[in-house]
């Protein structure tokens, strides 16, 4: 492991020791953070999978029924019926935070409903049931959107965090340890050198006196 390019001085040694302490602490914290995020992620991912299975099944069923119902009616008539929706939905969006990751929190806040967008005369009863089924499904779909987005963002954050942990564990901390060792050795060596030099000088002076 390459050591850092620094001057072997006492100042640098002190500074590096401080940094190593911070890095070790940060490493521990980040590791704990990853653990907790993974725990939460698994819960959310399970929910995501279950929701998606339900939504996919129900939506395909509803869309197929819609296609069937549509085939029984004149296509222009269908278009006309759906041209002006009688309903508008408004969402309420908040940002909640999971382990410092901002994730969306979407709920349907207001739903102005006036029933079907067409008169009972113009469409078959099949179409009515499709619209009602869709209505029920919509809430689940919005929920799926929230959960899926949360899942995405958490996965992203976990990956980033893992990288940070790895960088600290395998690069930063060993590098600093190596450098600290190097500086300590160098300082010791200098000290020994100066002691030896002093002894040598002393013995030369002693010799001259004699």
């Amino acid at each position, binding site marked *: 492991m390459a050591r850092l390019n620094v001057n072997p001085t006492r100042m640098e040694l002190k500074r590096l020791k401080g940094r190593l302490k911070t890095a070790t602490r940060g490493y521990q914290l980040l590791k704990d953070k990853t653990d907790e995020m*993974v725990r939460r992620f698994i819960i959310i*991912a399970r929910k995501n999978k279950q929701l998606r299975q339900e939504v996919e099944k129900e939506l*395909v069923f509803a869309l197929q029924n819609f296609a069937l119902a549509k085939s029984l009616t004149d296509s222009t008539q269908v278009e006309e019926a759906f041209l002006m929706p009688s309903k508008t*939905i408004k969402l309420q*969006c908040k940002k909640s935070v999971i382990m410092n990751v901002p994730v969306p929190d979407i709920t349907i806040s207001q739903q102005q409903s006036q029933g079907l967008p067409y008169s009972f005369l113009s469409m078959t009863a099949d179409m009515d049931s499709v619209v009602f089924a*869709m209505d029920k499904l919509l809430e689940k779909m919005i929920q799926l959107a929230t959960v*899926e987005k949360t899942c995405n963002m958490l996965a*992203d954050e976990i990956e980033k965090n893992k990288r940070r942990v790895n960088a600290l564990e395998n690069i930063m901390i060993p590098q600093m340890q190596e450098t600290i060792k190097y500086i300590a050795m160098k300082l010791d060596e200098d000290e020994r050198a100066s002691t030896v030099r002093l002894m040598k000088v002393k013995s030369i002076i002693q010799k001259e006196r004699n």
Partner: protein
Amino acid sequence: MYNRVGVIGNINSIMALKAVGVEVFNATSADQAIELVKKLSNGEFAVLFIEETLAQQIPDVLQKAKTKPYPAIVPIPSAKGATGFGMQGIKNDVEKAIGTDILFNKEETTNGR
């Protein structure tokens, strides 16, 4: 801000969603879908559903949108049935976060018993 719901796909199959208050945008090709996604990511739409068949063709755009909290772009199946693209997305997320796919593997082994 962020209070509308949109769906991108073939107008014939998703028209039913219009009846429940979702705004419907017609796209039949990948280019149209990309343009719509860009246009609709302007800060008004919180949720964009997109048909799986279209979503499969524009992975780059979806990947870019994943980093922001809004809009949440969610692939949905069309009337032809689910292609498994949405499930694959969850699988990818799990693999990304944990390193190995534990959710789906587990299911397979329990099913096999």
